[in-house]
């Protein structure tokens, strides 16, 4: 590429200035005992001349002394080739060296011309592409010589040839080579055809083996580091979001540093977080989702990777791709290749710097018309979290928390979210130094990321240092090593959940009559560190929580590797590798005095150490036979060892305020724990791959593992895989529009062991009772006969390219059968166990993924690329253990997430409303209202109703890129269609009267009979409440003035059962007429929104613009003047737009519960504001 670029420059100048260049240029050289080659190089360096020659004709190692000053080129070359067998010819800026003919003795110049051009013939012509466009920079070489030429900007060329048997070779990157015998032609116009196979991608596959993508029988997706870093991400997974078909990425709470889930081809395991295995440069690294500590998400460990260090990411989606990785590859493998120093001569420096601002911009809209209370507008109950109390801004006078017992008007403030949350900032800086020579290469990279969050006093820092290098000890022995050290830390991570001690809930539950800024000085004067300022007992001051009850961590991670590759004989290589990933994480949580529920504060500190090491020894063989058979095979052995250690200490109460040590714990309140574990797996594996004439490829793999965690008899397990790739476009002549066609298919198994100590029952220690030790047996029945899990995957797909790669289409359909899953299956506790470890079931995931890459427009310097990827996946439970017929995932409020055998994972259920089921009754379908006036749920377990499913119908990522000259505009759009989620945040905001929609029940016309209106349009009213907070808002009269209430009576429409005089049950209307049982607005609303999950079930459809980057690349010549190789600046934006079908300002991406178990489709106060990020990024290479 670089060569052709230079050639292009040369040839274009050639067209304008013929021989004047050689006359005007003056050279100065002073070299002693230099070889001809060195002198040629020196001339090339000083000038724009390019030399062409054929190695065998020129003695490049001949040593010459040369000393010239301001001489023209002829003079210099004459000296150089004096007394040699060579001669030269200058053509524009090309210098062709040939062999002297020893015959004639004349002037040197003549002799050369004679020798090179016996017939003194020249050929001219034009090289064009299939569209007739002139191709610049095409290399033209006279076969068998070093003589050649290059086309100019219009595709024109001229070349001197020897005779009619001369053959011209036309070549250019991306086009098929063409050879033409000259014959007697003097003008030769050539059309070059695009070389489509040459465009095929090299991808990194299992065990780090680079393969041509076309040879693979399974779906593998590659994302370049550049595409990951279009906008800066603190977690590499966010950079993948929306870009890869078949992959679902969701960030836990939307905050910088929170965990990011990556699920490939659907969740196939019921008992794990379904995260793929991450392998960085051959080092398997730990990652899991449940890195929660005291409610704070410390981020999944994969976020320790500095995205700037990433060269590319390969995603091995199915077991076919991943089978060689063994046990842990069932959920796919993400191979991360970091940048290395190779591929560039000399030393290069890369610096990039980015700053982004995270701006909270959209909130769930709360109301500011009514103050705290539950009883109604007539009573001010400042201590309540609910807001069904008196009118604000209406001149009502009440004593309040800060009015010293005096009456003061109730005033509203609408600043509690906007004045609390702040703009977050992230600064990212990276410097990398790399270099290489023929013996090796190295790269050193230093990165630093600093973030302050949108929640006050939260932060996240990451410093990374990475060194890697390769050295060729011998032409046949290469050693490489690398180490990366990452420190991630935070003084305080926000807690985003529904607990009383979380900022999110605390801010939301402030009443509208509170100015949040009045709480900002959060210590009571004179009682600093002892008593927080707050206006109600039940809630903490959010500023206090943010600043005093901090949750910090410090994680040190080291990933290291040492590897040698010894090419024993040609094609046979022995590779040995040791890799190690370890981290230690220290955590600390403080609770200050006066914390709700922990009045004397508390302190917890934990430390965890985890390490995994892998030894691999692998012998591989590659050979191409007669350009027909391409064979590679390998055998290998692996040992994996994991070790973990955990310690925790907690003081549940403190003695001295603001002193955070365990020894400051109140006597008797200190808890402690410690544990450690280890496990190991031995594996042997083999792979054979055979390719036939670039047309058909067959891959076979097999692996056997022995795991320490399984019973002796089941310890060893074997799993094979096979895949085929057939390139029809190589086998048959394809229509012109079909450039490339490949069909692929594969079948594979992956075995999976279990965690350590899963076989036997153990006693656990409970908290001491005074001086008595307490021990108990937990509810999980262990299983001494556990077998390894086996996932079998089948996939079939095709890769097509149309219209000379302007359109690329890849599609895959897959089926994964996960058998023998080790499930912690819920049992009725009455059996004596709450769950049991079993090998059971058949969980089947099916889905398809489609990638469409297009370039709709190329017009001059303008180019528009547009990529799509679409994913759909569904997982069904086909079998569970004998006698077990459903699997329960979780429950939130009145929503149950569970799946029955034969049904799809993601189903959400609720108890339905109890209604009149007698079809002959005039009240058929009417809710049966209790004598207390309230709707009832149907408690019959057989009547449970399915109300939704959290799976999206499909997920689509769209990435348009526009480029014009040095400018480019990139966008990443994520569209997730369909599915539902249950929001308990909305349930509580409604329950608490925080939303304007809670002012009134279902609207009605107050001038007409409400009973008639219900009878006329029952669907509108039944199952909802009717009434309002005041008469204006639809409240009814209580009919009892002694209550001292406004007309704020409400009711649940339906029928009540009463017993008549003769003891029969009769239905009585509860439709707002006489005899209606009236409710307060609070009760009427609450009993609807909290009893029925479908009241708060929302569409999960949304469209997000995740990334937007506008980049300007400094033009090369200009950059060169500044001494730079490359420089670019981009303006970036993330998440600046989101549309949700639900329209409640709740982001459906947040609809899941984290913590000890990850449950999708339900959420509770995972409701931070929507955050848009803006910033810019500078990249400089020199």
């Amino acid at each position, binding site marked *: 590429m670089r060569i052709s670029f230079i050639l292009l420059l040369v040839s274009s100048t050639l067209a304008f200035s013929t021989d004047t260049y050689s006359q005007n240029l003056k050279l100065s050289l002073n070299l002693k005992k230099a070889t001809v080659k060195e002198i040629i190089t020196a001339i090339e360096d000083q000038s724009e001349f390019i030399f062409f020659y054929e190695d065998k004709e020129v003695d490049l190692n001949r040593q010459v002394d040369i000393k010239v000053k301001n001489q023209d080129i002829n003079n210099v070359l004459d000296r150089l080739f004096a007394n040699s067998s060579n001669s030269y010819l200058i053509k524009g800026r090309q210098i062709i060296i040939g062999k002297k003919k020893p015959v004639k003795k004349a002037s040197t110049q003549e002799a050369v011309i004679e020798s090179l051009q016996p017939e003194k013939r020249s050929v001219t012509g034009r090289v064009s592409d299939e569209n007739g466009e002139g191709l610049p920079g095409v290399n033209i070489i006279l076969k068998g010589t070093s003589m050649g030429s290059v086309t100019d900007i219009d595709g024109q060329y001229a070349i001197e040839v020897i005779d009619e048997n001369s053959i011209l070779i036309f070549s250019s990157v991306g086009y098929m080579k063409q050879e033409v015998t000259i014959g007697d032609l003097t003008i030769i116009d050539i059309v070059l055809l695009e070389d489509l196979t040459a465009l095929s991608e090299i991808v990194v596959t299992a065990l780090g083996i680079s393969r041509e993508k076309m040879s693979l029988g399974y779906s593998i997706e590659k994302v370049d580091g550049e595409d990951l870093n279009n906008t800066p991400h603190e977690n590499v997974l966010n950079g993948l979001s929306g870009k890869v078909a078949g992959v679902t990425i969701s960030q836990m709470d939307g905050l910088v540093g929170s965990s990011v889930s990556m699920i490939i081809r659907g969740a196939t395991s019921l008992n794990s977080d379904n995260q793929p295995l991450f392998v960085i440069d051959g080092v398997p690294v730990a990652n899991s989702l449940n890195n929660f500590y005291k409610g704070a998400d410390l981020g999944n460990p994969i976020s320790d990777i500095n995205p700037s260090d990433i060269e590319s990411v390969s995603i091995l989606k199915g077991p076919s791709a991943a089978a060689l990785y063994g046990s842990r590859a069932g959920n796919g493998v993400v191979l991360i290749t970091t940048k290395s120093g190779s591929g560039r001569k000399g030393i290069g420096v890369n610096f990039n710097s980015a700053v982004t601002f995270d701006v909270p911009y959209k909130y769930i809209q709360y109301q500011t018309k009514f103050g705290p209370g539950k009883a109604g507008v007539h009573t001010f109950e400042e201590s309540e979290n609910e807001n069904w109390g008196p009118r604000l801004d209406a001149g009502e006078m009440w004593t309040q928390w800060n009015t010293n017992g005096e009456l003061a008007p109730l005033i509203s403030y609408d600043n509690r979210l906007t004045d609390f949350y702040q703009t977050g900032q992230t600064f990212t800086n990276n410097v990398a130094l790399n270099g290489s020579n023929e013996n090796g290469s190295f790269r050193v990279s230093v990165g630093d990321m600093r973030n302050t969050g949108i929640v006050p006093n939260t932060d996240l820092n990451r410093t990374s240092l990475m060194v890697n290098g390769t050295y060729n000890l011998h032409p046949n022995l290469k050693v490489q090593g690398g180490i990366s050290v990452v420190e991630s830390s935070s003084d305080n991570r926000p807690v985003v959940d529904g607990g009383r001690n979380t900022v999110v809930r605390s801010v939301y539950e402030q009443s509208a009559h509170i100015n949040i800024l009045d709480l900002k000085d959060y210590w009571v004067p004179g009682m600093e560190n002892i008593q927080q300022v707050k206006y109600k007992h039940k809630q903490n001051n959010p500023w206090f929580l943010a600043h005093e009850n901090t949750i910090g961590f410090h994680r040190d991670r080291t990933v290291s590797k040492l590897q040698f590759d010894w090419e024993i004989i040609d094609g046979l290589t022995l590779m040995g590798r040791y890799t190690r990933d370890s981290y230690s994480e220290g955590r600390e949580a403080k609770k200050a005095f006066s914390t709700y529920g922990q009045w004397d504060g508390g302190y917890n500190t934990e430390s965890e150490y985890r390490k995994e090491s892998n030894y*691999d020894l692998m012998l591989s063989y590659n050979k191409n036979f007669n350009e027909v058979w391409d064979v590679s095979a390998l055998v290998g052995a692996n040992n994996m060892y994991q070790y973990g250690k955990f310690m925790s200490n907690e003081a549940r109460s403190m003695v001295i305020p603001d002193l955070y040590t365990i020894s400051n714990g109140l006597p008797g309140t200190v808890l402690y724990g410690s544990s450690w574990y280890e496990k190991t797996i031995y594996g042997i594996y083999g792979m054979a791959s055979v390719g036939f004439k670039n047309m058909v490829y067959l891959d076979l793999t097999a692996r056997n593992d022995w795991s320490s965690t399984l019973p002796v008899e089941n310890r060893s397990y074997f799993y094979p895989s096979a895949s085929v790739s057939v390139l029809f476009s190589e086998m048959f002549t394809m229509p012109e529009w079909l450039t490339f066609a490949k069909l692929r298919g594969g079948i594979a198994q992956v075995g999976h062991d279990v965690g350590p100590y899963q076989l036997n029952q153990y006693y656990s220690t409970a908290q001491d009772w*005074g001086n008595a030790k307490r*021990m108990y047996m937990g509810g999980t029945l262990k299983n001494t006969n556990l077998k390894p899990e086996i996932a079998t995957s089948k996939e079939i797909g095709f890769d097509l390219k149309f219209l000379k790669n302007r359109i690329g289409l890849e599609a895959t359909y897959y089926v994964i059968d996960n058998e023998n899953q080790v499930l912690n299956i819920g049992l009725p506790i009455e059996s004596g166990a709450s769950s049991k470890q079993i090998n059971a079931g058949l969980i089947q995931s099916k889905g398809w993924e489609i990638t469409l890459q297009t370039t709709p427009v190329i017009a001059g310097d303008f180019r528009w690329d547009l990529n799509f990827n679409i994913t759909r996946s569904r997982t069904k439970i086909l079998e569970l253990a004998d006698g077990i017929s459903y699997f329960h995932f979780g429950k939130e409020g009145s929503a149950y997430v569970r799946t029955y055998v034969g049904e799809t994972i993601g189903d959400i259920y609720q108890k339905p409303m109890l209604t009149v089921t007698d079809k002959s009754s005039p009240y058929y379908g009417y809710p049966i209202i209790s004598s207390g006036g309230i709707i009832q749920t149907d*408690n019959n377990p057989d009547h449970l109703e399915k109300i939704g499913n959290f799976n999206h119908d499909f997920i689509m990522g769209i990435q348009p890129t526009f480029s014009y000259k040095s400018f480019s505009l990139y966008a990443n759009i994520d569209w997730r269609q369909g599915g539902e989620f249950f929001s308990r945040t909305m349930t509580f905001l409604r329950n608490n009267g925080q939303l304007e929609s809670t002012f009134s029940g279902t609207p009605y016309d107050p001038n007409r009979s409400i009973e008639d209106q219900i009878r006329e349009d029952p669907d509108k009213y039944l199952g909802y409440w009717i009434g309002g907070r005041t008469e204006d808002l639809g409240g009814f009269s209580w009919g009892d003035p002694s209550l001292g209430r406004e007309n704020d009576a409400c009711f649940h429409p339906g029928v009540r059962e009463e017993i008549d005089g003769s003891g029969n049950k009769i239905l009585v209307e509860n439709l707002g007429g006489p005899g209606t049982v009236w409710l307060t607005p609070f009760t009427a609303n609450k009993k609807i929104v909290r009893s029925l999950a479908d009241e708060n079930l929302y569409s999960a459809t949304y469209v997000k613009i995740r990334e937007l980057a506008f980049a300007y690349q400094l033009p090369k010549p200009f950059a060169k003047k500044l001494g730079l190789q490359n420089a670019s600046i981009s303006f970036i934006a993330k998440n600046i737009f989101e549309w949700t079908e639900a329209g409640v300002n709740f982001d459906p991406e947040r609809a899941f519960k984290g913590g000890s178990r990850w449950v999708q489709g339900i959420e509770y106060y995972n409701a931070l504001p929507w955050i848009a990020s803006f910033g810019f990024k500078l990249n400089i290479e020199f």
Partner: protein
Amino acid sequence: MKKLYITILLFVAWLFVPLSSCYNLDDMNVSPNSPEEVSSNYVLTYVLTETSKVYNTLGKEADNISGAMQYTQRGTDFNALRVNSYDWSPGSWSYYYHILRNNEMIYEKAVKDEHPFFEGVSLVMKSFIFGLTTDLYGDCPYSESLSANDEIYFPKYDEQKNVYKGILEDLRTASGLLANVDAAVTPIAPSADVIYQGDPDKWRRFANSLRLRYCMRLYNKRSDMDAIGMNIINEFNDASSFVFESNDDNAVMEWLGITGNDSAPGGPLNSANPGFGDKPCQTIVDKLKSIDDPRLHRWMLPVLRKWDDGVAVETDYTITNVYGESQVVTYVPPLPPTEDTSLYVGLPPGLAGSIALDYNKGGDPASYDSEKNPYVSYIHDRYREDANEYVKVRLMTLNEVEFILAEAAFLGGFNVPGSAEDHYRSGILASFDDYGVENATGGFDFDAYYNNPDVNLTNAPDKLERIMEQKWISLWMGIESWFDWRRTGFPDLQTGPVTMFGNKLPLRFFYPSPNQDPKYLVNYNAAVDRLEATPNVPTGQSKDHSYSKMWLLQGTGKPW
């Protein structure tokens, strides 16, 4: 070149070492953190403390049963529907079975090790927890329960009579085992036994006292029990010879008050929100006031603001109760004449939350914390402490035994030494002793108390009602009185203005939301089918309802 080969050799060797020198895969998977076998002492402490806690929780102030028995009511909107209006919903019995599983571990090990003391104690605890379960719910998994190890995952719900029969048999066995324990040979560590400090005699008294409790529970169904081979009268008589004889015999667990784990539920360690929302109910307050009962002052506080005709302006008085505890009460001149002018004001049962929180406030325009209406009495401060000498978990006490004996003597047919009145008096005295009435400043004249015509048994128009009424008082915030009420209809409690399912008190707990497995539902549905829906169960609703009658109540005409 030589150097190169040495290098390669070293690399290969270095890699082969770990690959060839195997870890021992068998040893590696033995947990270094947790034992597979432990002394039953540790498990027993767990079982006793956790049982006590769950039992206590049921009767904890303002929970469902305390509200139904009108010891307490909710004075706020929060939980008012549930407590005051009986809007009950399915709870959970998981913890009972969790404890039972651990108790079973003790039992099995005791049988294996031939340790009659642990065997007897574990049978008592098994009976206690299963007794509680069936009392609350009716039919429940029993004979097939706790058999997951035998791959019985969906145990059937046993008919209630068989559960009671098993309980009584186990208790009889336990009594026999405990009578023959030599604590020197087969001891239980005193520190581990948080109830009886390793005293087998007291465990035997507890076993027999429980037999009295369950025999009396089954009195109305004695012929059904007889039909399945369990003679209630004989069983009762057999047990009554070795029961509680002093409050020192009581099955009681004291709170330590060190951590949340070992502290009373109402104290600051466990209750972030102190229980001011729970008010003493008017029913019991008025009863205690009407008979001038000294226990009133142990259990409740005077109002902070008292309506009073005698003052012209708000005046503070220091009020001292019979135990010498003082409190400042503000006397407020009367506004409307409808308010209660007493020093002790209970909250009437069954008020809607929005009404309850303003109860007796008159026209006072000040805004108070919604849980702290100063015109209604609070439960005594001791219930908001982490530990207090009068606040403990009373699994069973002497006064209950005495009242059972009084009832048995009254009913006749039992072999009870002493008259109903003897036991009735002893019951009241036992309760007074338990609550330290003798510590009243200036002493306490029991005879004067007893001679009150509303206390004295002799003058009672309905002697059973009188016995049950005093038993109800003595069982303050306990759950036994609910079971007694179901059986006898006494005390004759009336619902308030707002009830969720008609003007009756609830009869049972909803079953926990059943496991949805069809195999489980078969058993569950069979049990639900055996329930008898009263008219208060809405049509179309499952019979698994708080207003359905379990076998124990079916056909007895009780409580209504």
